[in-house]
């Protein structure tokens, strides 16, 4: 849930990167961390296993500038993608303001994408959220890999509601900041809209 502090003049929002295991959620955050100026970011935390698989979450605090004298701070989280960490994924979705779904474009991961998207919808429902009403951006990652399926197929399988979507190659940063900007903007717009503003 966003948090507005009128004393320190800050708007804080929570973004969650969701998606199947090894799809590139952590890589998105690492790229953002690497390319953001030191004054705009805090430390990136990764709670990972010895083999660098996300165990609980990655966390990256970012400042995206000021609106009407209020600093906008975004807390970026990833979830562990592996199926058996479902309890952890539910916890990380608590208080979420916007979701990025990082899909893996490879044909052999299509089933995992669909399963993870269903899991997202289900876990949000359990927390009282409706994915169709939440700021939500779709990212098709690993577009450069030889077994990547076509954009049309990905769209048909994963984005029937036509949310904003981006093609990405997170290892080199293609599409990473476009995705971040889109979700941050959607969250602020929704926050304003929700207030009746």
């Amino acid at each position: 849930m966003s948090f507005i502090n009128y004393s320190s003049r800050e708007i804080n929002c929570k973004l969650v990167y969701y998606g199947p295991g090894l799809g590139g959620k952590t890589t998105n955050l690492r790229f953002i961390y690497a390319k953001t100026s030191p004054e705009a970011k805090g430390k990136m935390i990764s709670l990972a296993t010895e083999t660098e698989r996300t165990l609980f979450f990655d966390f990256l605090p970012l400042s995206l500038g000021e609106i009407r004298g209020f600093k906008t701070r975004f807390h970026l989280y990833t979830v562990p993608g592996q199926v058996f960490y479902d309890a952890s994924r539910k916890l990380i979705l608590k208080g979420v303001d916007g979701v990025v779904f990082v899909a893996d474009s490879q044909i052999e991961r299509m089933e995992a994408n669909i399963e993870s998207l269903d899991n997202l919808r289900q876990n949000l429902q359990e927390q009282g959220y409706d994915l169709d009403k939440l700021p939500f951006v779709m990212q098709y990652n690993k577009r450069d890999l030889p077994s990547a399926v076509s954009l049309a197929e990905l769209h048909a399988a994963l984005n029937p509601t036509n949310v904003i979507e981006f093609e990405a190659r997170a290892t080199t940063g293609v599409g990473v900041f476009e995705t971040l900007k889109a979700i941050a903007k959607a969250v602020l717009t929704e926050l304003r809209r929700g207030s009746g503003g």
Partner: protein
Amino acid sequence: MSAPDVMFPEEQRQISSVCQRLHRDANAKAVLLIGRDGQPIAEAGEVGEIDVTSLSSLTAGNVAATGGISKILREKDFTSQFHEGEKTHVHITLVAGRAILVVLFDERSSLGLVRLRVRKAAEEMARLFEQVAKKAASGTGPSILNEITDADIDKLFND
């Protein structure tokens, strides 16, 4: 999206003063108050070398995980936690389901004293959060959201 959590200057001042008093009365190294989703709200004491943002996020994750464990055990929320370190110990308490109160202390204090002082401080903070919630619901507090325009948001994202 549900209504945002808010904090107003008047209550922020009062909450900060409760933190400072708790820091003093509990002989603590530092006191931090964190929003339930991991945003730092107030602090007192020796926080200079601490990465407050990271500590806040990890503490919120920790509290959420402990809440998950309590559900599995069909237990009510574990309202407090204690981590014993070699030099620094951490006492964590939920405040009115809205915030997390963290006390860092060392050999200058004791768990008993910290618990005692935390109880009183948490009650005071709970009252202040109640006050904030009432003010926010009645619309008597300030509201930046009514002032923001689409153009302001666009401007933020124009390179």
